[in-house]
């Protein structure tokens, strides 16, 4: 039993962090694009901004449990299977990306427009403005977003557990919901709560270290 719970915890941690990583790899560039193509920004482009914004809204509107099922053909294509931790990473990453894009956009909006103007006046390229001004200046807010995203992903990954993704979600579902084993279910809950606390506390700590405002 202990071994089962340990493995479940490990699987949940892997699913959360790996999909969080891929979610950022996909979502952060989208967030940058969303921000710089806004009206009045450095790469203003109504068409790109409108399309991107609509696609993100669509993906954010799909309930995660449906996204998992809906994406099964694509998941099989990428992961070779639709069952297990590896397969769960695909919908988790895709589910997290639009969420991260919106939160990153919000972080960039908090950066004073004067800083972007100063960088333009100094002859910075668009890439330099993004890399040397927007991302570093929005870093505390991006890290805070990362903590929120990881916590959301812990929840999503347990939902995935109900349809064969493994991890604590599957244990809680099988032993608690199917098997009426209240003790195991409560232990699973306690472990999930502990994970959420650890992520949020670590996030707050890093934000304090990086925030010089």
């Amino acid at each position: 039993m202990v071994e089962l719970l340990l493995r479940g915890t490990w699987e949940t941690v892997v699913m959360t962090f790996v999909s969080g990583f891929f979610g950022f790899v996909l979502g952060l560039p989208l967030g940058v694009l969303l921000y710089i193509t806004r009206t009045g920004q450095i790469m203003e482009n109504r068409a790109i901004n409108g399309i991107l914004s609509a696609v993100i809204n669509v993906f954010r509107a799909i309930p995660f449990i449906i996204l998992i099922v809906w994406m099964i053909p694509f998941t099989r294509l990428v992961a070779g299977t639709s069952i297990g931790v590896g397969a769960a990473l695909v919908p988790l990453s895709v589910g997290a990306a639009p969420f991260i894009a919106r939160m990153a956009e919000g972080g960039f909006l908090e950066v004073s427009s004067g800083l972007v103007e100063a960088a333009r006046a100094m002859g910075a390229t668009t890439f330099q403005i993004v890399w040397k001004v927007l991302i570093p200046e929005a870093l505390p807010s991006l890290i805070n977003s990362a903590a929120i995203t990881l916590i959301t992903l812990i929840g999503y990954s347990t939902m995935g557990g109900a349809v064969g993704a493994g991890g604590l979600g599957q244990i809680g579902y099988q032993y608690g919901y199917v098997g009426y084993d209240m003790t195991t279910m409560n232990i699973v809950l306690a472990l999930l709560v502990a994970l959420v606390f650890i992520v949020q506390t670590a996030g707050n700590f890093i934000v304090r270290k990086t925030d010089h405002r």
Partner: protein
Amino acid sequence: MIELRHITKEFRQGGRVTRALSDVSLTVKQGNITGVIGESGAGKSTLIRCVNLLEHPTEGEVIVDGQNLMRLSSRELLRVRRSVGMIFQHFNLLDSRTVSDNVAFPLELNHTPRTEINRRVQELLQLVGLEEKADDYPSKLSGGQKQRVAIARALANNPKILLCDEATSALDPATTATILALLKEINERMNITILLITHEMNVVRSICTDVIALSGGRIIGQGFEHQYFI
């Protein structure tokens, strides 16, 4: 050094067109400190932003150091901007960088080698009297100190021109005086041409060699002998 020819700038917002500048022509001579004075809304900010094309004039020509900026490619424009320093009312320092890294910023943009950056940053911080603050973050500095950092940053690439956008408007009178003295010193020692905009007459009187009055997007007076300034 700077020549604006028949600059008109219109902003379109929804269906409405507002004219911020109408047929403005002016010349800033090499080595001068030229002040543009006017109340808020007169078009001063738009005017100074036309000099490095942060704003593109709707009509007219911008000639800086012999080059017509309106005809440059975007890459060439970046190079011109790197040779024109600019400071702002609200300083616009990066909160995520220390004082020395803020000064290093424009040098990083054109890929200056690290050892050269370190040498130059030290030199500039010495010039503005902030060597001890090198490793502090801007949030720890006073307004006057922040503007000194901004000046050091603006001078990093040895510009021939310095643009000052209401650079002392957020500072108290005593600090204003020290910043103006620093600008004067930079102008004299390094022979840097300065164009500044302000709404304060005492700024113009204390350091400018030439003055232009702007109102409603038009030039309404020029030179200290003009009745506007007497």
